[in-house]
């Protein structure tokens, strides 16, 4: 037990290990803080955090000590620097895109949606990006900037459960991004926790009603992050973890067999120090070594996560005259009833020369 305490204490008591953990988890904390900042309207803070994240994600991360440990039989996947699974990386770009649009840089917003779409696609499994909003917004910005967004609109509509998607209103000057529910939760499944799985998100909210000075808009979910987390196919890392699990299982079984055989031989030798005893001892030692190797193998999947993501994303655009405006956001349950205590008041100013961006969430953190 003393040994176990010693082992358990090392992560926190060893300042070097703690510093390493802080560094490799940095992006996870940035993500979480950025989502909270977005919901609290602290857009400058969110911008700084997401700039950091987007810069990190745009680098091509090759082997380092963390990735080598994550790949090795005796290292844990969580020893790699956290970047998140594709659905998490996509959301970093998605939020940053909203902020670029807010700053009056829709082309940089589109760049974020395009990068996110590249992250979501996986050519190894022949999956293309299937986020509705990434394509829809790519096309919308393109149309607003005088280009042809029809191809992106068609891609979005193909993947959308809501058909038809609204045509692009190039004269709309207020764009509204909404989100609701709590996103998927990672957990480790399998005999050794080597399989990364997701619990569905949950949301009592099924749609949203936005009312702005007489205009009433019904917004339904356009993207579901649980669907996105679970439909991209397996990871290369899953194969690595699977191999680690096979190693762990095989060495454990081999260790058991060697210990049983060795013990039986020693017992049969009656302590006469004959050949049977020596072979038995050898098998016993080999079995112990095999068991130690098995115990040291760490196939557990990395379940660090951006835990405060929403389940659903939605979007709309409307035309408003320049100047200050007010409105309300109501969150509706499955039967279309307003869920009390979640209503949001909107106070915003429409700019004369660029789009005004509104962001709302049913979450506060």
């Amino acid at each position, binding site marked *: 037990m003393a*040994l*176990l305490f*010693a*082992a*358990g204490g*090392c*992560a926190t*008591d*060893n300042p*070097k*290990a703690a510093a390493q953990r802080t560094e490799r988890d940095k992006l996870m904390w940035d993500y979480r803080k950025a989502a909270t900042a977005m919901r609290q309207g602290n857009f400058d803070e969110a911008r700084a955090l997401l700039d950091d994240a*987007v810069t990190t994600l*745009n*680098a*091509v*991360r*090759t*082997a*380092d*000590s963390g*990735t080598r440990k*994550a*790949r090795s039989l*005796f290292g844990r*996947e969580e020893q*790699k620097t956290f*970047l998140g699974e594709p659905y998490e990386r996509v959301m970093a770009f998605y939020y*940053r895109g909203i902020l670029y649009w807010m700053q009056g*840089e829709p*082309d*940089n*917003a*589109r*760049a*974020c949606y*395009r*990068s996110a*779409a*590249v992250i979501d*696609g996986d*050519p*190894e499994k022949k999956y293309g990006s299937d986020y509705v909003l990434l394509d829809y917004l790519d096309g919308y910005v393109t149309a607003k*900037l005088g280009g042809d967004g029809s191809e992106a609109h068609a891609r979005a509509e193909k993947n959308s459960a809501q058909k038809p998607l609204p045509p692009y209103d190039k004269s709309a000057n207020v764009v509204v991004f909404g989100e609701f529910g709590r996103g998927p939760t990672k957990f480790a499944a399998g005999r050794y926790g080597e399989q990364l799985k997701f619990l569905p998100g949950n949301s009592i909210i099924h749609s949203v009603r936005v009312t702005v000075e007489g205009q009433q808009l019904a917004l339904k979910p356009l993207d579901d992050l649980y669907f996105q987390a679970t439909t991209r196919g397996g990871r*290369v*890392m899953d194969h*690595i973890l699977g191999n680690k699990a096979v190693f762990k299982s095989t060495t454990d079984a081999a*260790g*058991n067999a060697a*210990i*049983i055989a060795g*013990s*039986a031989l*020693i017992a049969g030798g009656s302590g006469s120090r004959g050949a049977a005893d020596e072979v038995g001892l050898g098998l016993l030692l080999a*079995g*112990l070594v095999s*068991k*130690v*190797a098995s*115990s*040291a193998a760490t196939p557990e999947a990395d379940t660090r996560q951006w835990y405060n993501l929403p389940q659903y994303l939605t979007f709309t655009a409307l035309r408003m005259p320049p100047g200050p405006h007010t409105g309300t956001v109501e969150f509706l349950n499955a039967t279309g009833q307003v869920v009390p205590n979640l209503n949001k008041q909107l106070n915003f100013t429409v700019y004369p020369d660029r789009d005004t961006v509104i962001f709302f969430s049913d979450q506060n953190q």
Partner: protein
Amino acid sequence: MIMKLPSLSNLTLCSALALTGFGCATSGVKNPSGTPVTEMKADERGFVAGTGIESQDMLAVTEKMARGILSIPQIAHAATPPRIALEPVKNETRFPINKDIFLTRIRVQLYSKAAGRVVFLDREQMQALERERELKRTGQVTASSDPSVQEFKGADFLLTGKLQGMTTKAAAGTSDYVLYTFRLTDNRTSEIVWEDQAEIKKQGLEDAVYR
């Protein structure tokens, strides 16, 4: 004897835990002191790299564009230095960028190399300039010339740029091609008097743990 095996197995497990536990506390941390700040030239590829738009690309592109602009007859042989206004670069790639940085660098390059052969108009500061002029007109601050005379200059040329990209993602990695085009338009005639391009392609493959 067989009945004793579970205790042997537990012992082994405890040994393994002890080994892994002590290993964690005593194993050497790779690069524990971090990497000291390394000063690099802006046109060098750093040890942190992506397939997107980076400083070395911007330097290569802006230097090429500045050289091109200086070589055209409308600039090289102009009787009076032509006035150029800058328009923000249009970004059609998948990489969010600081759009002003390209034109800022081209402007600085031209000023440093053109020796007064071109003049740029500071349209970014128009609001502040108008405010200052208004203060002069209302007598709230002194003026060295008659503030009621319109002295803000019009541009002879407009410099614009566009970044376009193409991405390929395959099992072998991600490849990004970026085309940079810049052009100079005569404001009076709408003729494009100069246009040039630069293209950069990069590819890379992430470590398997991120795929």
